[in-house]
């Protein structure tokens, strides 16, 4: 678990990973330049890294640890970026496109129905294609945008993992989460770690972690 100044979902994501894997995630500060060997998964958590200065995720994407994360992703290590983590992954170039201010200006904080796109990724394998699940969203800059050619390619290659079933923030083609070409990097704005335990009020995110454990075991 990578932790930046201003991250605030790192512990929630770590708890979900611990519950799903039975192992304690390693928490890594943003100044680290090397990652532990034999990593299975890197979590890039939500929050407001560096106070969202310049652009959401822009500063974190240039921090030392992200160079190591990019190298690990290139080698095939799975990377899960949630909310601000998604913004960081796009800013770092691990995923295409950009996350802009919500089209309605307002911070959106509610449960959002999501339609599963490609269910043939390590992150979505426990879902059915087209299935609708509820996950909480809480963001100001979740409006996914890319040029038309990139959007066509994402759809054509089955790289849209989740879409908003109801309009949420103005995202192009209702995109809520995408994977990279190798399907080992997922970025999504909704928070699966906040819908993991029944006490959260929903368990829509649980199968994402359970599927990941299966895929990586």
């Amino acid at each position, binding site marked *: 678990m990578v932790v930046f100044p201003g991250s605030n979902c790192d512990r929630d994501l770590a708890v979900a990973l611990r519950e799903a894997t039975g192992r304690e995630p390693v928490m890594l500060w943003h100044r680290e330049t090397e990652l532990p060997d034999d990593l299975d998964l890197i979590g890039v958590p939500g929050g407001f890294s560096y106070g969202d200065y310049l652009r959401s995720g822009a500063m974190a994407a240039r921090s030392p640890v992200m160079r190591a994360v990019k190298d690990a992703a290139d080698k095939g290590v799975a990377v899960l970026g949630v909310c601000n983590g998604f913004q960081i992954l796009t800013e770092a170039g691990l995923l295409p496109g*950009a996350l802009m201010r919500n*089209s309605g200006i307002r911070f959106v904080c509610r449960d959002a129905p999501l339609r599963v796109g490609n269910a043939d990724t390590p992150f979505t394998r426990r879902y059915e294609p087209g299935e609708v699940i509820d996950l909480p969203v809480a963001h100001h800059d979740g409006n996914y945008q890319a*040029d038309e050619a990139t959007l066509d390619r994402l759809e054509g290659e089955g790289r849209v993992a989740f879409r908003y079933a109801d309009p949420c923030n103005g995202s192009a083609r209702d995109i809520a989460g995408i994977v990279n070409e190798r399907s080992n990097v997922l970025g999504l704005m909704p928070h699966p770690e906040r819908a993991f335990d029944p006490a959260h009020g929903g368990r829509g995110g649980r199968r994402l972690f359970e599927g990941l454990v299966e895929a990586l075991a």
Partner: protein
Amino acid sequence: MKARVHVTLKPGVLDPQGRAVHHALDGLGFADAVADVRVGKLIELELADGTPAEAIDEMCRRLLANTVIENYRVELP
């Protein structure tokens, strides 16, 4: 030496902040005067003398602007 970097959203990219400011100006009685509003950023750099233009351009491309959605223009006074 100083440089000013103007970062603006690319034409065609929806600007929710610009739209909100536009509505606010309408509310202040400027509806007839204002046709459109776009919000950008101005970044002032204090640079070592002789910093080549290529270096400033690289700063813009690698950090100051997100070229997926933004254009930039460097102004050297």
